[in-house]
């Protein structure tokens, strides 16, 4: 059983943590879902196999990749397609892809594969069953794919400069889990040890997809070059991640799952508080931090973006790194609560990018204090949904004020405060963001503006005696039911609400995407607009067959060149 960590330094307050600009500056950490998965698979000595690889000379066919843990096997079934360039789109409205996938619960029979071959390539237009746990698809990075096939077919390795500029051969454009398209509900796997942590199914699917993509590019090069072709060099393969292109659809997720979101944030905040509470670090721990900091610099050097917002943030982060290096060079980081001193200094000195980088990096030496928190990141609180009607109007108001008091007296009819409206389009049934005063979508608005709704609830509660049970208020005001529920949930899950306006003229949905993707463990955030971002997953990670003999944890930080 885990010993209870003593924390003398409290967690950071929700009002500090839950601002959009900070959430939009989060970095991956020990508690990222990809690293949790690779650590587990290595620790449990999972085995991997490729029982089927039937891909023809045009690159069309299917393959099966199986991963076996202590209790069961999961299999990625990959379908490879010959996609005309004019059909290649990362948008959710696409209807065809370079490759499509499903993660099968067990080992599929030929009948399963035949059934899935008629459905998975069509994605939303197909149906899967309770035997499948996720459905996903990916497109090639055209510039890199062709270069790889040509180079390998001609017998030499691809240009590493080009590899570094893109970072992946394929990017996934959606990974659906939890009952989507007929797949099994989350409940089927929620109580299994290996999938109790959120998004382990999806992360496993992407981990296996990366191996498939490497094998496919080797296959295509061999087909083209015959005996002259060579296999992709392991060190180049290692540097490749899987890209991901994520749009607005993911942004409402963190608003729609306040308990789950709270549990992610609170796990990381508790980890930060535990490490800040370490009174004295050992030399080994401090050296490990210094080493990971240097490796992290390499990672940040490779992070590029063409988007003005991210270019500015990256420049700030580079400036922050200079300051961090000066600080850690002058400090032994051993005595007198070293990590708290470092963090407190960072809070006063660095941008939010830099502060959050430090907050994530200082967890690295402390797996024993941090890693057990992963088991607290799922949403087990099924009772949080029920409204407690006995709660008085006064208490509801107090909970509301905790997270939304800052917005009670904002003018919510002013254009700049409600310029945007979230809605779902008829065309593809996906969330979008409109200009409220330019497009006729107000009647279709989704409940994704909790701060505004809280202000309206606050005003409505004023007319009621403070000791009234809220059940009576809700009978007369069902329009506030959604927000009363959120206020009560926030009392149990105080990190579940964004402390910012999600419909203001200057809201950046990419902040919401960045936060969620950082918890996945993504790197190289590259916004394509204020509502669309590309990232890299698993770059530097061992491939399945190497997992047991490699660093299954800190692969996210590139090895320092020319050093041991």
């Amino acid at each position: 059983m885990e010993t209870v960590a003593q924390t003398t330094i409290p967690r950071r307050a929700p009002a500090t943590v839950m601002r959009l600009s900070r959430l939009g500056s989060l970095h991956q950490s020990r508690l990222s879902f990809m690293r949790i998965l690779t650590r587990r698979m290595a620790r449990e000595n999972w085995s991997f196999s490729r029982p089927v690889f039937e891909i023809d000379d045009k690159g069309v066919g299917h393959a099966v990749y199986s991963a076996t843990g202590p209790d069961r096997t999961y299999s990625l079934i990959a379908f490879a397609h010959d996609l005309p360039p004019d059909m290649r789109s990362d948008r959710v409205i696409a209807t065809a892809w370079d490759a499509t996938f499903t993660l099968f619960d067990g080992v599929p029979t030929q009948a399963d594969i035949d059934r899935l071959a008629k459905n998975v390539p069509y994605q939303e237009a197909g149906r899967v069953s309770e035997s499948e746990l996720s459905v996903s698809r990916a497109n090639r990075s055209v510039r890199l794919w062709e270069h790889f096939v040509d180079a390998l077919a001609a017998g030499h390795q691809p240009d590493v400069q080009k590899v570094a500029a893109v970072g992946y051969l394929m990017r996934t454009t959606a990974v659906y889990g939890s009952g989507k398209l007929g797949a099994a509900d989350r409940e089927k796997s929620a109580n299994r040890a290996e999938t109790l942590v959120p998004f382990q199914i999806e992360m496993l699917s992407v981990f296996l997809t990366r191996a498939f993509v490497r094998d496919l590019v080797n296959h295509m090069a061999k087909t083209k070059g015959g005996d002259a072709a060579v296999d992709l060099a392991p060190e180049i393969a290692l540097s490749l991640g899987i890209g991901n292109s994520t749009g607005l659809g993911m942004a409402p997720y963190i608003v729609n799952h306040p308990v789950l979101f709270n549990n992610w944030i609170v796990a990381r905040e508790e980890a930060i508080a535990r490490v800040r509470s370490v009174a004295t670090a050992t030399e080994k721990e401090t050296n490990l931090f210094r080493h990971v900091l240097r490796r992290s610099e390499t990672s940040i050097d490779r992070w590029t973006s063409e988007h003005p917002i991210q270019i500015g943030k990256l420049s700030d982060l580079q400036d922050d790194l200079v300051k961090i290096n000066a600080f850690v060079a002058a400090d032994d980081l051993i005595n007198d609560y070293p990590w708290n001193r470092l963090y407190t200094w960072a809070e006063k000195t660095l941008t939010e990018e830099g502060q959050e980088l430090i907050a994530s990096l200082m967890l690295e030496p402390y797996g024993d204090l941090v890693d057990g928190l992963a088991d607290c990141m799922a949403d087990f609180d099924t009772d949080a949904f029920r409204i407690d009607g006995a709660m008085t109007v006064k208490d509801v108001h107090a909970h509301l004020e905790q997270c939304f008091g800052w917005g009670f007296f904002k003018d919510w009819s002013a254009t700049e405060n409600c310029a945007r409206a979230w809605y779902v389009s008829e065309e593809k049934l996906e969330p979008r963001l409109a200009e409220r005063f330019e497009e006729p979508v107000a009647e279709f608005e989704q409940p994704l503006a909790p701060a505004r709704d809280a202000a309206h609830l606050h005003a409505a509660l004023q007319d009621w005696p403070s000791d009234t049970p809220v059940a009576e208020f809700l009978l007369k005001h069902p329009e506030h039911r959604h927000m009363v529920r959120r206020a009560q949930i926030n009392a149990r899950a105080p990190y579940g609400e964004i402390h910012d306006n999600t419909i203001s003229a200057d809201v950046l949905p990419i902040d919401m995407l960045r936060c969620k993707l950082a918890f996945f463990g993504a790197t190289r955030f590259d916004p394509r607009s204020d509502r669309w971002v590309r990232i890299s997953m698993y770059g530097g990670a061992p491939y399945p067959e190497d997992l047991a003999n490699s660093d299954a944890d800190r692969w996210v930080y590139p090895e320092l060149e020319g050093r041991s």
Partner: protein
Amino acid sequence: MTYALNEVEATAKKATRGAAYTWGLAEEAAKATRWLCAQGVDGCAVLAGLLRATDRATDMAPMSLDGDWASESGQLCALISGASLSDCAYRLPTGAIRMHNVVAPQLLLPFAAAAARHLGHPIAITWSGNTVIVSEAGLCTADIPAIDVADLVTVKTADASGQAVAQSTRAAPLATDWAYLNELAARTYAPATEESRLKGAGSGLSDND
């Protein structure tokens, strides 16, 4: 065809919102429909029945939570009444709640079950001379009397619950009900325009790179 319970929940929420209920009540309908399906009851049929009867109707809420519950229009909506029943769980240990002329009374069961979980005590729901027991574990009565409108529903704490039914992991709604729910759900979708496609979702940049 079978559906994941997550699909049922998502569809029920949109359908209820499409039928002009508030978001908060739509969320209740979604969880309630999912709960019914998980107990092996055709929750989609129950919700579709309620929404057919109440679509855009008004005055189907209890006028007051004091005394017997009855509506201005004469018929009580089981969704609104169910939500209030769950809200008022704290009253059940001290007395029964009686409701008059409830449309789709089966939809009260998930709310009674929420109250049972909160109280840690089974609850009995009686209409037309039949009593259904729900507990923390779920539905404890195999046969739910089918009826469109119940003259009188009595909800009170029960002495014993018996065994809960086996939980289902999939739902198999009738095609007509599923189509009707999706028809209502479609009312929540905004028509797309070329402008909204570009503005609303992403960038106009090419993905062929």
